[in-house]
């Protein structure tokens, strides 16, 4: 980062915002204690949309997206499109039917639909891996922000950030803090857009809607310095762009913690409409993210700082904060930006770890190992699992294997190759059997990790199943495998087919 040393004002703001969530959560709980437990209360479609958006927002959206656009320009828009277009798939193919199916987690759905403990176990294990990979990306974001705040190196930053995060989760859990997702979304959007407006104003561009204002900055950048961010497919070609975009879309519609959103909405219609609001709230952030990237490039170019590609890659995830600093924003405003990034990452990780821990304690331990386990025992197992998962994530984040958004993309590829096909076929084809889905999910895991596993043996694999973009060719292959195996194995029980036909698609005349 540009300057070392402690940043007192931003630090105060970050902790004040975290404290605000605790206080608001306690007030909220006092008011709503009789209504819901952990999952938060929904007040209509807009509230549901805010919940979807705040559940979705992460360090990858807040820091990673601008970093990618800063590096790759137009090519990076595959992430913008993938992470918004996926909600179309989710709404059109799954949302209503999932709500009618009424299962709580992804492994629970797969276990019940395919009446198979083995399928439940595999999908639980996959959910845990998705949690781990996705959380590594978040931890990187947390590490970067804390390293900057305290003025220490990245390694210490990520360790300190992880400790604060775990303390925060334990504190919230002990106090029984309810998640106020509307407040969360409000904080995220304000902390992201307000600094951007001030930045645009200082640079002399249209600041009321910097989403439009950055266009002129882009023109200036290419006219004055010959840097053309908008050049199409400059960094990767059409095939890779499409594969990446498609993979992120399928992953969006297959991420367990995103799918879980639909089980708690009060009815099917509200579930569908809250997706629209959620997508709108998410798009507000993604319409703005390129502005940080463009302003960042412009400020650098004007200051005569030209980073060599390797250094640019190394600092790309810092672009948002760095741009705010170089742009001369007041300390408190940079602090707000940091606070937004920290809360996005914190709440995302908290949700992910909760999903992962539930897979361990409920789907694996309670449903498969010890069905007599008491609630208390399951709770303590879930707490232990959260801690172990967090430690594993920390290990992975000490040496982050790529950019925040790139690491997250691997989690999306895994979800798109395994969970998405299982849900799609499970809901839309009653002939899908447990053997089919098990083979499909295992094939999906192999395909996702084909590049690191077989890439050196078979160079073709690197082209068709690139690590971050394997689902364009992968998911259709998984679907074909699932269908083929299903054709040759005993059909699902009449009971579950009847449930599918009458309850899930229950509009029969």
């Amino acid at each position: 980062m540009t300057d070392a040393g402690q940043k007192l004002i931003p630090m105060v703001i970050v902790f004040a915002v975290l404290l605000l969530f605790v206080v608001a959560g306690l007030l909220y709980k006092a008011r709503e204690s009789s209504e819901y437990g952990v999952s938060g209360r929904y007040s209509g479609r807009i509230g549901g949309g805010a919940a979807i958006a705040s559940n979705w927002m992460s360090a990858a959206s807040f820091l990673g997206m601008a970093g990618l656009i800063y590096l790759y320009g137009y090519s990076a828009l595959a992430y913008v499109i993938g992470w918004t277009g996926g909600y179309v798939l989710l709404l059109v193919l799954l949302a209503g039917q999932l709500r009618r199916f009424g299962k709580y987690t992804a492994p629970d759905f797969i276990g019940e639909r395919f009446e198979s403990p083995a399928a439940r176990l595999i999908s639980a294990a996959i959910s845990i891996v998705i949690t781990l990979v996705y959380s590594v990306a978040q931890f990187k974001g947390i590490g970067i922000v804390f390293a900057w705040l305290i003025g220490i190196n990245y390694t210490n930053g990520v360790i300190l950030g992880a400790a604060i995060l775990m303390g925060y989760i334990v504190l919230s859990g002990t106090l029984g803090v309810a998640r106020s997702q509307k407040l969360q979304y409000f904080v995220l959007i304000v902390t992201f857009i307000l600094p951007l407006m001030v930045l645009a104003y200082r640079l002399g561009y249209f600041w009321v809607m910097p989403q439009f204002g950055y266009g002129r900055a882009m023109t200036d950048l290419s006219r004055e310095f010959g840097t053309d961010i908008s050049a199409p497919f400059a960094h990767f070609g059409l095939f890779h762009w499409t594969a990446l975009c498609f993979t992120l879309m399928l992953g969006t519609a297959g991420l367990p913690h995103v799918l879980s959103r639909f089980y708690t909405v009060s009815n099917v219609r509200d579930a569908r409409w809250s997706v629209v609001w959620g997508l709108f709230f998410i798009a507000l952030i993604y319409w703005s993210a390129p502005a940080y990237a463009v302003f960042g490039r412009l400020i650098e170019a004007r200051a005569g700082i030209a980073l060599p590609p390797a250094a640019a890659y190394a600092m790309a995830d810092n672009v948002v904060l760095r741009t705010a600093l170089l742009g001369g924003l007041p300390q408190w405003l940079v602090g707000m930006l940091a606070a937004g990034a920290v809360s996005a990452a914190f709440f995302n990780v908290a949700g992910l770890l909760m999903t992962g821990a539930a897979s361990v304690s409920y789907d694996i331990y309670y449903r498969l190992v010890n069905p007599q386990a008491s609630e208390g025992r399951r709770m303590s197992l879930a707490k232990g699992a959260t801690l172990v998962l967090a430690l594993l994530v920390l290990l992975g984040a000490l040496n982050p294997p790529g950019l925040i958004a790139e690491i997250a993309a691997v989690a999306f590829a895994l979800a798109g190759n395994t969970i998405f096909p299982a849900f799609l076929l499970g809901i839309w084809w009653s002939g899908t059997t447990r053997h089919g889905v098990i083979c499909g999910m295992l094939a999906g895991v192999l395909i996702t990790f084909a590049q690191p596993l077989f890439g050196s043996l078979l160079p073709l694999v690197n082209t068709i199943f690139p690590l971050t973009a394997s689902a364009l060719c992968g998911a259709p292959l998984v679907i074909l495998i699932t269908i083929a195996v299903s054709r040759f194995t005993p059909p699902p029980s009449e009971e579950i087919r009847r449930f599918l036909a009458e309850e899930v698609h229950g509009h029969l005349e």
Partner: protein
Amino acid sequence: MRNESGPYRVNLFRPKSGYMKGEVAIMLAALVGWGVVTFGFQLLLRLTDVPGRGSWLAGFSFFNLPFHFWFTAQMLPLWFIIICVLFNLCIDRLSKRQSRRRDGFND
């Protein structure tokens, strides 16, 4: 087909009831709108690319941005929202028509 014996069958490509037929038609329309505009535009951008000069789609500006950049970065997310709104309106209408035809509608 052995797998699809018995009275209870669900198959996206062979919708049975009137409601599901309508539902599947709306779904396919939404997916076509989603896929063709998103990936079709990228393909068009690639096909119209003239070496050295770039595509004409990148040659004029719109909302201060080169048109292709504006379309992908700003129009496509908006397009997704539009698809979702239209999809929900159509499904709502279909459900309403269905509920009029049948008592005890409880969606």
